[in-house]
């Protein structure tokens, strides 16, 4: 991957992981635990109502305090990762896979077909994506799935454009010509000699986009266009807490801080990977 720094004294294929790799590994691990087993971390049931515990400020019993229904906000944030980070992962993964295939296909086909395919991409990029995502999500019927579909539909074109550019320049490369001379077929060349070379840049973009998609998704659910109550979802939690934000600040501020720090983590990690790999 892009983060590989000069390997000094690599023995038996193992070397000390770079700080960037450690960081990426830790991120993956934490997210995996949050998605697979939130119960290990969350102290309480995220859905349990307890009116006697309403509006408890952050403290010993409730790390992030409680909301207007007496639910433990920390537990809701932990369980909410499934809906927030998980949804962002789905959006960016589907968009990246589709975009890579689309972009590579356009670059490979070339000529008029390439121009038509890229005009479609241009068209998608000519829409103000946030407003469109809102319109699509609103029309599909409010819900997490609607928000997911809306964002994915608007997210893939940037991957297509990026990958197409790279594939076109790679196809002119010597090793591709060599493979062609050796009799490799078109799809074989794409699959084994071209597309893998775009993975570094795609991975950087993917990491950066996880942060972007998280902010966009929580933004949609903040507007009521994503997950619906009582689902624990970060944007939705903040939207609910908005009404009493001036009295119980923690209910809005702390989940928001989690969104911010998660996005910050993805984006600084992506930024670091980009600089380590030297890709723009």
């Amino acid at each position, binding site marked *: 991957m892009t983060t590989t720094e000069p390997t000094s004294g690599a023995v038996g294929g193992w070397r000390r992981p770079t700080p960037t790799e450690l960081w990426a590994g830790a991120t993956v691990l934490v997210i995996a635990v949050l998605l697979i087993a939130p119960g290990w971390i969350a102290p309480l049931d995220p859905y349990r109502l307890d009116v006697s515990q309403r509006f408890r400020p952050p403290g010993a019993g409730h790390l992030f305090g409680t909301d207007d229904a007496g639910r433990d906000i920390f537990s809701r944030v932990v369980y909410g990762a499934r809906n927030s980070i998980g949804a962002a992962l789905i959006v960016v993964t589907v968009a990246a896979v589709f975009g890579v295939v689309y972009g590579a296909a356009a670059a490979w086909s070339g000529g008029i077909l390439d121009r038509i395919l890229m005009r479609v991409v241009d*068209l998608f990029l000519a829409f103000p994506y946030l*407003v469109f995502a*809102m319109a699509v999500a609103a029309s599909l019927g409010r819900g997490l799935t609607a928000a997911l579909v809306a964002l994915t539909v608007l997210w893939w074109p940037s991957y297509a454009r990026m990958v197409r550019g790279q594939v076109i320049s790679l196809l002119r490369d010597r090793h591709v010509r060599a493979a062609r001379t050796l009799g490799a077929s078109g799809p074989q060349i794409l699959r084994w000699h071209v597309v893998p070379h775009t993975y570094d840049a795609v991975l950087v973009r993917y990491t950066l986009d996880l942060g972007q998609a998280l902010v966009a998704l929580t*933004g949609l659910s*903040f507007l009521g266009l994503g997950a619906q109550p009582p689902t624990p979802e970060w944007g939705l939690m903040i939207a609910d807490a908005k009404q009493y934000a001036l009295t119980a600040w923690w209910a809005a501020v702390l989940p*928001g801080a989690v969104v911010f720090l998660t996005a910050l983590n993805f984006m600084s990690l992506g930024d670091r990977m980009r600089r380590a790999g030297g890709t723009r």
Partner: protein
Amino acid sequence: MRPPVARRLLKPVTGLAWILVVVWSAVSVTFLLSRIVPADPARLAAGLDAGPEQVAQVRAEMGLDQPLIVQYGRYLGDLLTGDLGRSVQTRQPVLDDLLSALPASLELILVSSLIYAVLGVLAGIAWAYWPRGPHTLLLRLGAVVGVAVPVFWVGLLLQIVFAGRLRWFPVAGNFDFEGTGVPRVTGMGLVDTALTGDLTLVGEALRTLALPVTTLVVTHFAVAMTLMRSSLEEQLRRPYVRTARARGVKERRIVFADALRNALNPVVTMLGLQLGWSLGGVVIIEVIFSWPGLGLYAYHAFSAFDYNAIMAVTLLSTVAFVLINALVGAIYPLLDPRLKEAR
């Protein structure tokens, strides 16, 4: 390949054609979306206590019993005459709703765009000009935070601290025209109070703008700053800068007379895109601060499945986005003499 002269003559034509294609696509997509709305628009329009006959009557009135293609044709025809339909919620023509909500949003967007553009460009120049020192730590932090921070979080935080706790600024709403008796001329608080010449009223308008504008600036300036910096640094590595240095030209003059103009190109593009996107970002801000602009109108439309309103807002922002991009394209030749001649 077409000869260059023909291409030059065709360029504005293809540009216009492209704009029309984009707008037409947006129209078609929003039309399709509005017909897959899960809620029955006729039911919504007729009201909850309406009987089946009334709903059927409303459906016929709205043309919803016609085949889809007929509805589409009628919708396109209405659009061309400027008829965007009626809002289900306000029961008024959507166009009137849009026009009355537009000034508030424009005020917010224009003021904050101006601030984050200037701030971002200046900070980016300073960063490239003084690339070492303690201030870079702050700028680097600002760059990372600025792109990652969610709009709704900044807005709520500012609202809680500066309106709720410190009470420096109003919690919500735009300038109070009715309460102060300021006549609505443009509908923008800042402009209309300035027209009265009363400085305390202008101050009042500024106070209402402070928090939403700050939210927009905080979440938007980082992109311009980072891009300005990298673009200027890239220009300062060019051979022509070395030539100027070899001529003994002062560093400040090299940056401002030579490199800056070339470096501004990508920054202008990005600022244009951001301006085009800002209607999306402004929805959340208007919701938080109850700012009665297009964003808040769209929010209510989303909640009520008010599909005429949703379509209109989406269309409007697409048209604005496409036009802004075209405008930015028209600015390039002013920055690059090679393009100016090619026109």
